[in-house]
């Protein structure tokens, strides 16, 4: 029972990070019907830039406390990733907006490789340890352990997601985003500046990605230039699981995938008599992806895709 609760907690932590990243995929998909495969690399960039920024900040010798350093690093990384997201859309996707959908998809994969290689050039292809600056005192939780850091990750992720959903539901920009996703031509006819809305979608999604990247780095204690591929694929799976294009679905899919993965990995060893260890946890994500695509391609909360006008 303890193991179950422990894996549930771990799953919730990882799941809320997946959810933040999945939101980036699903927002772009909702508006452009484009799977932005470069989003995983945005997450990676967020983590790597934060690590570099922290080392610069701590080199000043002021002796700032750990959490302040991390927040400072993040505040430097967020605008940079936002700018990267903005430039990607402007340079790589916008010229292809009227092209067949395969073209921007392949371009997205290309951009993903480019960003990864830029990161390799800057940071070399080695894992960097994420500076141990955040408190992780353990707390007992029904016989399982949850650390300060894990609590912060979950709470922060929930706050950010709630803020985003509120923004989309209640503000003028959010309304414009929904209008563009439902009918781009008519939204334009109503005076919505479509290019602006699409740019903002990439900017916001990239900002969320940077925060998620730092969460991944802090949670696992390391980050590396090729980390974006796997984390991106997992978050994409989460978005598909929830119903791609649906914001609530991305949140639900992310958390659900995190829990399936953690609980599954926790029992994989005992159940297979030690043949498969918990390091096989990735297979759960892709089993989920395959099962969803076979049995419910529209996802848990996704609508039937039939009614596109």
């Amino acid at each position: 029972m303890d193991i179950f609760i422990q894996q549930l907690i771990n799953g919730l932590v990882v799941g809320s990070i997946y959810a933040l990243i999945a939101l980036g995929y699903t927002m772009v998909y909702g508006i452009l019907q484009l799977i932005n495969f470069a989003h995983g690399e945005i997450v990676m960039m967020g983590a790597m830039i934060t690590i570099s920024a922290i080392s610069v900040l701590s080199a000043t010798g002021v002796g700032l406390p750990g959490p302040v350093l991390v927040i400072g690093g993040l505040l430097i990384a967020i605008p940079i990733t936002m700018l990267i997201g903005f430039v990607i859309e402007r340079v790589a996707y916008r010229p292809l907006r009227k092209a067949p959908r395969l073209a921007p998809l392949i371009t997205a994969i290309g951009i993903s490789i480019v960003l990864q290689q830029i990161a390799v050039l800057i940071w070399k292809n080695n894992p960097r340890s994420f500076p141990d600056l955040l408190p992780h005192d353990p707390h007992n939780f029904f016989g399982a352990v949850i650390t300060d850091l894990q609590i912060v990750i979950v709470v922060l992720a929930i706050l950010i997601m709630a803020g985003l959903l509120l923004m989309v539901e209640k503000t003028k920009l959010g309304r414009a985003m929904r209008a563009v996703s439902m009918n781009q031509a008519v939204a334009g006819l109503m005076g919505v500046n479509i290019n602006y809305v699409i740019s903002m979608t990439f900017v916001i999604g990239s900002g969320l990605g940077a925060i998620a990247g730092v969460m991944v780095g802090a949670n696992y204690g390391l980050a590396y230039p090729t980390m974006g591929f796997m984390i991106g694929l997992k978050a994409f799976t989460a978005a598909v699981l929830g119903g791609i294009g649906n914001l609530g679905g991305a949140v639900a899919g992310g958390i659900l995938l995190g829990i399936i993965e953690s609980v599954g990995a926790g029992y994989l060893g005992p159940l297979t008599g030690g043949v498969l260890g918990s390091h096989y946890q990735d297979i759960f994500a892709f089993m989920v992806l395959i099962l969803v695509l076979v049995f419910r391609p529209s996802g848990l909360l996704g609508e039937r895709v039939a009614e596109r006008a």
Partner: protein
Amino acid sequence: MANQAKTELLLEITGIHKRFGGLHALNDVALSINKGEIYGLIGPNGAGKTTLFNVLTGLYQPDEGKFTFKGIDLFRQKPNVVVESGIARTFQNIRLFHNMTALENVMVGRHVRTKAGVIGAVFRNPGTKAEEAAIRARSLALLDYVGIRKHAEEHAKNLSYGDQRRLEIARALATDPQLLALDEPAAGMNGKETDDLKRLMEKIRADGVTILLIEHDVKLMMGLCDRIAVLDYGKKIAEGVPEVVKNDPRVIEAYLGATPD
């Protein structure tokens, strides 16, 4: 009224051509709409009415011709420029934002007349809040104006057909147009709904908005329009007050086929 002594030209197009491959969808079309009138556009199916609408609202770029509105040149302008200069439209096949509430649909229509951007969305400064409140109030008033305020919080897709048409009109009015272009607003409506719609259009005109109307319901058109133009095979074959158009032999021929003399 058409027989007013002083008429003021609002929209004028001359020599408009639009070709789709081998199809000459609009062939040398000219028309002028005066301020304050209800101007009807009729013609058999495929005559080019909706194509002309799309040209007048910037969705299609005409191949040749002239297009001025309030003296401003709108030839080959983008849709958002056309809307900003004061032409709004509805669609023959309803094109609402289905998963938004009726109120939100109208609020989107206010975009063209409002400013606040992403900074405001994030920080919720007083200016943004005031603007948002004004958008909301104006949109509710428009829902009231077209008679569907009680459905404000319902999703557009759940409204009845007639109410969806009214919602499209409210959304178009939210852009503060001087010319409202309605593409078959009575299509699929029953007799009572059509009568209500007619009264709504008369009210809109009385409030100073000029109306361009495509409609198949000839009885409605004859009773409502000040002037009517008839399109057939992409050409304007007649134009004038309803009584004259109705008895024009070319119009009768276009609708009923050639009659032997």
